[in-house]
């Protein structure tokens, strides 16, 4: 129906604007390009939760044939739009996240020691850098007891979701 098409167009236009706004924040030279290292931040700020591996794939897809270190908006926009419309890389439901923490908390204590968490985060999966680890600890750890009450941590950070 014509109306549906109109709505679809409006939605896509809205999505394009969102992507454009996010892109512009990192377009320092105002020439519709961003440093490839900022792509992760842009994609995630638009509500996606890719893994580092998935991110790499995405970048390879939109990079120039000869990598310049920059990503052009013309290549970014269509791929990103598809990502959002297909709702790929959905947000992680809170309970799933909690389960993940519980898997790590083998003794089912209800909390994780900072060293414990550090070990997992910097050795397993797609490891954190030291900076990332420090930042997470400063946000998550109870400063007195040096443990992370992950249940509180999860709810505290997920409440931020728009």
């Amino acid at each position: 129906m014509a109306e549906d098409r109109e709505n679809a167009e409006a939605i896509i236009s809205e999505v394009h604007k969102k992507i454009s706004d996010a892109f512009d924040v990192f377009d320092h030279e105002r020439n519709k390009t961003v440093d490839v290292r900022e792509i992760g931040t842009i994609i995630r700020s638009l509500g996606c939760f890719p893994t580092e591996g998935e991110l790499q794939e995405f970048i390879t897809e939109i990079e120039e044939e000869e990598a310049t270190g920059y990503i052009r908006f013309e290549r970014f926009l269509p791929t990103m739009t598809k990502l959002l419309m297909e709702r790929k890389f959905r947000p992680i439901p809170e309970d799933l996240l909690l389960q993940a923490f519980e898997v790590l908390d083998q003794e089912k204590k209800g909390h994780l020691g900072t060293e414990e968490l550090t070990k997992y985060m910097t050795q397993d999966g797609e490891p954190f850098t030291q900076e990332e680890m420090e930042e997470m600890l400063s946000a998550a750890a109870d400063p007195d007891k040096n443990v992370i009450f992950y249940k509180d941590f999860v709810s505290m950070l997920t409440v931020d979701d728009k």
Partner: protein
Amino acid sequence: MRAAILIQRWYRQYVSRMEMRRRHTWNIFQSIEYAGEQDQVKLYNFLGYLMDNFTPSSSERNLISHIFRENEVCRDPEWERYFCYKNIDVPAVYSGPRLIFPITIDQAAGLVEAFKNKQQLHSRYVLQLLLETWKLLRMLPNINRISTCHSKEITICGDLHGQLEDLLLIFYKNGMPSLDTPYVFNGDFVDRGKDSIEILLILFAFMLVYPGDVHLNRGNHEDHIINLRYGFTREVLGKYKLHGKRILKLLQKIFSWLPLATVIDQKVLIVHGGLSDMTDLAVISRVDRHRVSVVSSLKYVSALRPPKKKSGSKSMLFSIDSDVDYDSATKDTIYNKRRASLVHANPFNSRESFQSRSLQDFSSVINRTKSEELEVRRRQMAFAHAGYSQSQQLFSTSVTSEFEPGSTDSLDTTNDEWKQILDLLWSDPMDQDGCIANEVRGCGCYWGPDMTEKFLNKHNLQLIIRSHECKQEGYEFCHNRKVLTLFSASNYYEVGSNRGAYIRLGPDLVPYFIQYQASDMTRELTLRQSVGRTERSALKALREQLFAHKTDLLSAFQEFDKENTGMISLNNWATAVGNVLHLDLPWRTLRSQLVTTTLHDMLDYQDWFQELAIKEPSVQTVLDTLYRHRSTLETIFRIVDTDNSGLISFEDFRQTWKLLSAFLKMEITDEAISDLVVSIDTNKDGSIDIDEFMEAFRLVDRSRLEQGHCLFIRKTEDTEGHS
């Protein structure tokens, strides 16, 4: 393993979101800050408008000269008498530092200690210290040339803006100024922060103790007109109720005598703002720097302009500076240059060209033909004979003496000189090549990497260190690491917004950075908390701006809502807001923070305004246009109040009101003004203080509202003269 990945995925997303929010917040603050500076330029335009459009009647003439009176007449010894501190007694109960001159290092250190303990220096000592400073500064050249010989490392600091904690932190980390620890302070010591005078006193004290090792560069805020608006004047008058005026007058002189730049080892240039395509250090060394201030340039220029004829002079008024490279192909990029792009056409105000006129435009008036010049001379003679007030006469005589036939050069050079100085203090670097007018700030220019290359080669330099712009990490390189911006006021916008930095430079001339953030709180704030805090502050400022533009916004919304349903789509909301506010921000993304109640993606905009009002209870009783002009109004008051007494006469008020209402295109009869004047003086003391002044605008506002009018009625036709 999967669990770990999941957590990492989630956490990384969270960090990205925070980073995005932090950037947005930063952009908001920057946009509003630069927009505020542009307001200041609008004020200058108003004052320029005064000069242009009124063939002065005797009383108006008095007001105008009175506003610009800078007492060039007085000789320095007369001034020294005026500033004499000797008859000021210091009561026995005073527990602050008592200075004995010549000042010693112990006394300077003692001052620092005293200010740390929140003590205030007595005005007698303030004046004495300032007088000594003035004497010293007058002997300094325009460009300080210093050296890192004897393996001394020089410490360089950027903007401090009245933030004493930052200066104390620097001294703590780096040591106080001494023979072994030389310092260069790169301007903007005052305004915005609350301890500007204390910072000045400390810097001056150390400079007096170690005149060869403490160097101060002038910043764009070391200017008494800027101080009127950005808080320094208010701070001094508040702290020194009895002698504040005298102190301010003396500071005015001191500021004008501050050196303009410093060069280290003939290789590194330190200047507050930056360059332009015209910058020439040889010219700058020659200039009479103390004659140049933003207002004096205005005054100088206006004295040369013939009174406007009723016709045909429009083009001259609105011409673009012919000096500046205005490549039309790059115009779009220019418009997008800054986050706060202020050159969008304003659909609601046909005077947009007026408002975007920069002070540089005056130069086009200067470049006139010979015959026009003769005309001007003739007019000035006429003025001189017409019994002009004394200062105005001195004006014209001092100017006509330069008007030798065929000596257009002297005119042009002087114009050239002050423009170069303004460029030094106001310019910002940009990424594109070239040099264009700085329309965001309204003064100075944007200069590109090619200009830097040219300049460095021409003067055989290797690095430019400048300040003037806040940077998140306290410093930032650009132009191939040939230009370094250094900013020393941490938490400038809000706690947690940015770090400050200072540099140590040794004989190798490689800068070493030390960063800091002066607040106990910041260390403990997590990323989330500091972003959240700064963000809330930015959003608050943004909401205030939105509310201040309510009338314009309403019109814009109504454009989209022709059927008057009271609803508007969110897309249209974003478009309208972007157009009205002229702030280049991602409105769609910010929308969720600014608009909370929507129904099917449609917004009831009247409700939304109510919401904004409720969030800002202080604004509820002050209507939007008044609010927007509030700081401008205050600045105007302080300008008219030339003796800083806090009071202006009825006559001055009447004149100011008349001129202001013409400029803003308000309709008010003379009778109405007279009634207003009388009713305004609520305490009936025969003069008007600032509260009564502001109140005047509110009263008029209310009565107009009863008639269903907007406060400032806009006319759409020409801008010549007034009825």
